[in-house]
């Protein structure tokens, strides 16, 4: 289904409401990060990736690997919407014996790799992209990293490999919301300038407003940014985006809203929907 810009923007708001609903139901979740990255997932799955339940076993499908596995609620909500599984499954999120655990698992239809430990997505994505090159296949590999996981050394090892093998079928997206569990990235371990670092490693880098679906669509549909180079998208996002009292607040990293906070949040999102 081809969506209009308005429909795409509305879809993000619907996803945000569902993220909150299932986090409240599970009494657990990574609220702030799921809200910051949901626009990226919306655009990837609805506008960019050639993947869905109908071709998930095809060796030619595009691959998405979520390195920031803790924001699994965003992924599950989008996968349900794409028809990988009934949305009602998410009522079991984090419940005893549920397959829908608090980090991505291949037991859930549509999930490519089990992730959750940070610094793992980029090496696996690089290997998958390398396989495509070796097999002369046209599929592309996307991976979403949190900015807080950049100090993991394995990311930089993989950044070297991706450039060394000229993996221009690989796109890494950094959900750059500038906050992590302890505080700001700058306070915890300053990784700026991210762009210059990756450029010096041999990547083609673009910045984008990571909460603007149209801007995301334009950038993500134009990879590779440079032939022969892996692409990096630094998506500037707002942690807790869409709910005023959650935005840019560390305490919502894995905070779960109470009943009143949930109702307030949903009311805000409904109002935003009316104004799209």
């Amino acid at each position, binding site marked *: 289904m081809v969506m209009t810009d308005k429909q795409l923007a509305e879809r993000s708001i619907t996803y945000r409401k569902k993220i909150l609903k299932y986090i409240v139901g599970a009494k657990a979740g990574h609220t702030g990060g799921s809200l910051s990255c949901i626009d990226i997932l919306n655009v990837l799955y609805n506008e960019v990736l050639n993947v869905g339940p109908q071709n998930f076993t095809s060796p030619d499908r595009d691959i998405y690997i979520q390195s920031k596995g803790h924001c699994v609620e965003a992924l599950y909500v989008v996968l349900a919407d794409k028809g990988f599984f009934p949305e009602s499954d998410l009522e079991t999120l984090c419940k005893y014996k549920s397959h829908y655990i608090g980090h991505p698992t291949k037991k859930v239809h549509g999930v490519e790799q*089990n992730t959750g430990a940070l610094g793992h997505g980029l090496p696996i994505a*690089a290997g998958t992209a390398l396989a495509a090159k070796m097999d002369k296949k046209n599929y592309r590999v996307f991976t979403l990293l949190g900015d807080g996981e950049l100090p993991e050394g394995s990311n930089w090892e993989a950044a070297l490999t991706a450039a060394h093998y000229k993996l221009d079928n690989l796109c890494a997206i950094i959900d750059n919301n500038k906050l992590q569990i302890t505080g700001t990235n700058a306070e915890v371990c300053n990784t700026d300038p991210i762009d210059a670092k990756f450029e010096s490693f041999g990547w083609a880098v673009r910045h984008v407003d990571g909460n603007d679906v149209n801007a995301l669509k334009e950038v993500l549909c134009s990879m590779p940014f440079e032939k022969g180079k892996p692409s990096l998208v630094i998506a500037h996002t707002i942690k807790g985006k869409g709910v005023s009292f959650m935005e840019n607040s560390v305490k919502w990293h894995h905070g779960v809203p109470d009943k009143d906070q949930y109702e307030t949040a949903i009311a805000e999102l409904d109002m935003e929907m009316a104004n799209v």
Partner: protein
Amino acid sequence: MGAVIENNTINGKPNQDVFSATLLELADKDRNIVVVTSDSRGSGKLVAFGQQLPGQLVEIGIAEQNLVGVAAGLASAGKRTFAVSPACFLTARALEQIKNDVCYSDNPVRLIGISAGVSYGALGSTHHSLHDFAVLRTINNIIIVAPADNFETTEAVKLAVKLNKPLYLRFGKKAMPLLTDDKQNGFEFGKGRVIRKGSDVTIIATGETVYPALQSAEKLIQQGINTTVVSMHTIKPLDAELILQLAKDTGAIVTVEEHSVNGGLGEACASLLLQNKYNKPFKIMGIPDEYTVTGSQTEIFDHYGLSADGIAQAVLNLLQT
């Protein structure tokens, strides 16, 4: 049971050489086989592989975490992937990648630990892997194999290619004699090979300690002690059926491994036996809980009694208690 090959003839090559030659032969017929290395082509004996099949060798450089992560990605995309790196670095530095990216995600990477155990000898403890069985035994969804001779190595590599599962295969650099000319029993992961049969004591050894164990049996027969020697090439899954049968048939069990006495083959056997009401003499031989004495692999083996004389003496001591 075939004849045990005379122990004074080193009629074999290093298992490492046999691994690379076997893999090259198989990869030449199967373009989907890929080797991933961490600047370890020389010690992994993969120089010829790189020259003959350059499109099937991925060089990562010295970055073991990335080596395993990239290998997991390649394997998930259908490549028959062998990640080759010194055992000491592969199973310590990249342990989280082995646990999550290979085993938990069920990406069928064949992890090849080269120059394993104390093969690097006097290079010291940074280069020894005396922990690998222990740490990998606790991780779900991995087969752990230490072939003893060239036959077992060849068969293990062939099986590893066929079997699309996470697997750890470790071996060393020393030329290894053929243990027996009996190949009728074949080779199967999870099934120990009885190399020699005797009713008094069973020695269960693995990897490069099987040969000195076999030599010790020749010494023990002179003392009137008849020994069964098993090459327990697969540490996990352990051949419980064989071990429990030998526990019944013989009067004592000694395990021998090029690994810490903590957490390896010996403790795996002990756990199995204790939970099956075993009450006969039992001894674990390996490297004690210390950073080893300086020396070559042979000197280190001798120092800790992992030699024909040392194992024979340990058996005698055990039977006298």
